[in-house]
């Protein structure tokens, strides 16, 4: 596989984390414009842990996820009772605050004669753990996708479990769910924290792949894009957001054909697609039908 393809596939994997993060909130019935904040928190946290404190990447990733969950709770607790657009705007405001804080954040240490660490708007360069440990791009790609696969498997298991059903029920009709005893506020908090951790993991990997991050990476565009990926790919399954990311980044990167016009074309296609399929490509109806095909096959074999 050539370097270019590896790069594209890695990018797809990285962005899928934040798309899955937005998806998790969506199926629980909440709209978030702000998952990019936790992606950023994860990136900065992991970067600081490896580049300044010399932690190994796996530990740093765990640290990043913890920070991401904590940051998410910081946002999620005061806004726990907010719903719909109110919650969405609160996440937007919070995410922008994080981004501005990243711009104001200076934390540099001298490591081997160089100044390493976040430098406000100048960004954070030198997150070189991957290169210092001789990890080839293809290995990193495998790592990203292995972790992503683990996340997707977790989602699939969740969907089949009672918790997953509870989640979707809460998403579709919170009053009904509450009336049958679902502790919707606790569910929401759990989802918010989990989504934050997931986004942070993606951010941690992102920081190490790029070796340089800056506050601009974590702006509203990333957040709205993630939401869009989740919806375009489809809300029926965790593969939906992945499909959304792959379509955008895959199509974007490979259609040099449309150079300079690709957003015009892609944007139009997305709008048309959504008019025809409001819940995305892999929506619940589609997933249900696929499931029915498989269970028919299973039944036939008995």
């Amino acid at each position: 596989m050539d370097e270019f393809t590896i790069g594209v596939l890695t990018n797809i994997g990285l962005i899928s984390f934040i798309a899955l993060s937005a998806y998790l909130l969506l199926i629980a019935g909440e709209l978030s414009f702000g998952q990019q904040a936790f992606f950023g928190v994860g990136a900065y946290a992991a970067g600081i842990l490896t580049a300044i404190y010399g932690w190994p990447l796996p530990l740093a990733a765990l640290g990043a996820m913890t920070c991401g969950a904590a940051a998410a709770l910081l946002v999620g607790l005061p806004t726990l009772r907010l719903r719909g657009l109110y919650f969405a705007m609160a996440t937007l405001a919070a995410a922008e605050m994080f981004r501005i804080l990243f711009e104001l954040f200076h934390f540099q240490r001298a490591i081997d004669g160089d100044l390493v660490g976040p430098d406000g708007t100048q960004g954070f360069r030198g997150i070189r753990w991957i290169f210092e440990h001789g990890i080839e791009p293809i290995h990193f790609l495998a790592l990203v996708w292995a972790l992503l696969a683990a996340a997707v498997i977790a989602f699939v298991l969740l969907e089949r479990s009672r918790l997953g059903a509870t989640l979707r029920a809460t998403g579709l009709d919170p009053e009904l769910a509450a009336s049958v005893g679902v502790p919707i506020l606790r569910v929401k908090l759990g989802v918010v924290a989990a989504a934050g951790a997931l986004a942070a993991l993606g951010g941690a990997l992102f920081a190490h792949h790029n070796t340089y991050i800056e506050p601009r990476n974590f702006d509203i565009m990333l957040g709205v894009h993630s939401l869009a990926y989740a919806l375009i790919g489809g809300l029926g399954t965790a593969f939906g957001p992945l499909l959304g990311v792959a379509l955008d980044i895959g199509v974007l990167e490979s259609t040099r054909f449309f150079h300079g016009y690709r957003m015009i074309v892609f944007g139009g296609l997305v709008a048309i697609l959504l008019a025809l399929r409001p819940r995305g490509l892999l929506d619940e109806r589609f997933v249900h039908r696929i499931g029915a095909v498989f269970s028919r096959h299973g039944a036939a074999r008995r």
Partner: protein
Amino acid sequence: MIADLLQNSLDGLAQGSSYALLAVGFTLIFGVLRQVNLSYGPAIMAGCYAATWTHLHFGAGLISLALIAIAGAVLAGAYVERLCFAPHRRAGAGSAVGSPVAAMVASFALWMQFEEAATVLLPKHLYAFPPLYSGAPLTFGPFFLRIEALVTLAAAIAICALLAWILWRTRFGLAVRAVIESQRAAELAGINVPWVFVRVFALASAIGGVAGYLVVATHGQITPMLGMWSTLKGMLAMMLGGLGSLPGAVLGGLVLGMIEVHSQWYLGPQSRDLIAYLLLFVLLALRPAGLWPARTQG
């Protein structure tokens, strides 16, 4: 000290006037369609870019440019309405379960289109825009007021008065208010609701076009960031004032302007946005209905 406070308040009101107009347009669309239109700002930007292009190639006067900006915004807005919102109307029985987010995400897709179209049309990141007024500001006592600020304030007042007249003194306004209060009751009363949507979109886009033109003509420059910026300011001001409330939109816009100018003065430029977002966050956590809540039902 007091002089600074008053001067900043004046500036804040002027700045806030354009925010108020943006918020009013955004609120009109939200109040009637119950949807967030992420292409609101980008459609305004499209109009302003059309005006910029015209100026670059034909050198038009201020009034003509304003009209082009408004017309462009209305056309762009109509495109958004047709492609993003008309297909996602609360469909009748028998259709697929819709998604309340789908129209909004579709409007995001068009936002991307508008941004790219702007850079295709005018590839440089920044273009000069003929300023509203190049002379010295008016002075009275220790205070000064730029002419552009005065024009913006006056325009905002005029447009709000016009909007109030439309809503309370015309048949169309009655229909708009009816749809805002209860779309179903409006349908039953024989109001052609889809047609109301189209006209409200045009009105909101026109108001936004005026706001956008004033912003761009005041700063003397235009960038593709105008789209996202306008939407953000409109949304922020709308939430501050109270979701879905028109008086709230005006109040929210003015308050936002004041907050920005004052925090920039006392705490430096980076604090400006930080304080505004912090205020919104705290407000949402404590009093989500906003500063001047809407009385309408969902």
